C-alpha cells in the first residue's frame, strides 16, 4: 500500500517536529520509499511493519563521506536528501537515541535553518518593498503601469514574506528542541 504526502517540509517547519512526524508514521508502519530533491513537495510512503525509529533532520552544504561513515558507525542510516536537508534514522528498542546531545549543537542546527530561510525571506521582502514602491510611483505619475502584474507581485511576495517570517519565528522559538 502506497500513500502520498504533499509539502511535508513546508508544513513541518521545525526540524524536531518534522522528525516526530516521520517517527509517528514509522510507528504506524509507514516508511518513505525514497527521499530525493522533489520529496519536500511529494513524498511516497509504503506501509510495512511498525518500527521504532528516531529520525534526524540536518541542513548541510555538502555531505562528506567521512560523515556518512561516522554516523553509520553510530548506527544511523542515511535515508536521503531534499536539496540541502539531509534525513537520517536509527532503529531503537528502549532508549531513544539523539543525533545531537549537546544543547549548543541543537541550537546550531536551528540557526543553520534560520540563516538559510532568512536569505529567501530577504529576497521576497525586497521584492515586496520594490513592487509597493513601483505601485506608489504609478499612482503619483501619469504613467499607467500593468496593475495586474503589480498587484500579483505585491500579493505573492507579501504572502511568501509573511510565511517565511513566521517560519523563522517558529524555528527560533523551538531552537533548543
Amino acid at each position: 500500500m502506497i500513500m502520498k504526502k504533499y509539502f511535508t517540509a513546508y508544513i513541518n517547519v521545525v526540524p524536531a517536529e518534522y522528525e516526530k512526524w516521520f517517527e509517528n508514521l514509522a510507528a504506524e508502519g509507514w516508511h518513505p520509499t525514497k527521499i530525493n530533491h522533489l520529496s519536500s513537495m511529494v513524498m511516497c510512503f509504503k506501509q510495512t511493519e511498525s518500527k521504532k525509529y528516531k529520525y534526524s533532520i540536518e541542513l548541510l552544504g555538502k555531505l562528506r563521506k567521512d560523515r556518512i561513515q561516522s554516523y553509520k558507525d553510530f548506527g544511523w542510516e542515511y535515508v536521503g536528501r531534499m536539496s540541502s536537508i539531509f534525513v537520517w534514522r536509527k532503529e531503537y528498542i528502549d532508549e531513544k537515541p539523539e543525533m545531537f546531545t549537546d544543547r549548543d549543537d541543537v541550537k546550531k542546527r536551528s540557526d543553520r535553518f534560520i540563516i538559510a530561510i532568512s536569505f529567501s525571506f530577504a529576497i521576497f521582502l525586497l521584492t515586496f518593498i520594490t513592487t509597493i514602491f513601483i505601485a506608489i510611483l504609478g499612482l503619483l505619475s501619469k504613467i499607467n503601469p500593468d496593475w495586474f502584474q503589480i498587484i500579483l507581485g505585491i500579493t505573492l511576495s507579501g504572502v511568501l514574506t509573511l510565511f517565511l517570517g513566521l517560519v523563522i519565528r517558529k524555528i527560533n522559538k523551538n531552537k533548543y528542541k
Partner: protein
Amino acid sequence: MKINKARDRFIPMSETMIYILLSLIGDMHGYGIMQNVENLTKGRIKLGAGTVYQSLGKLEKGELIKCVKEENRRKIYAITQLGTQILEEERIRIKEIYDNLEGIL
C-alpha cells in the same frame, strides 16, 4: 599567539569537548570516543553522532587535535601539543572550582 587564540575560542570548555579531548590522548575515531566517554562517565554521557562529528571538526579547525590516519573513510584523531596545553589549563581551572566548592559545601 596560537595559544591565546585557542584560549579565547575554547576556554571555558564544555563537558562534551573536555571528554572528547581527553579521549584523544590515545588515537581514536568518532565511535570509539563515544564508547570511551560512556565508560569514563559510567553511562551518564552518551554522545550523539552529530555532536561528536561537529566537535571533532571544531577541535581540528582550532588545531587542538589532528587526523593521524584514515581507515575505510573513518578518520582517526589524536590530541596535539596545543590541545594538551588547553586541556591542562582546563584541569587547573576545574580543580580551582572544585577546591573552592569543597571549602563551602
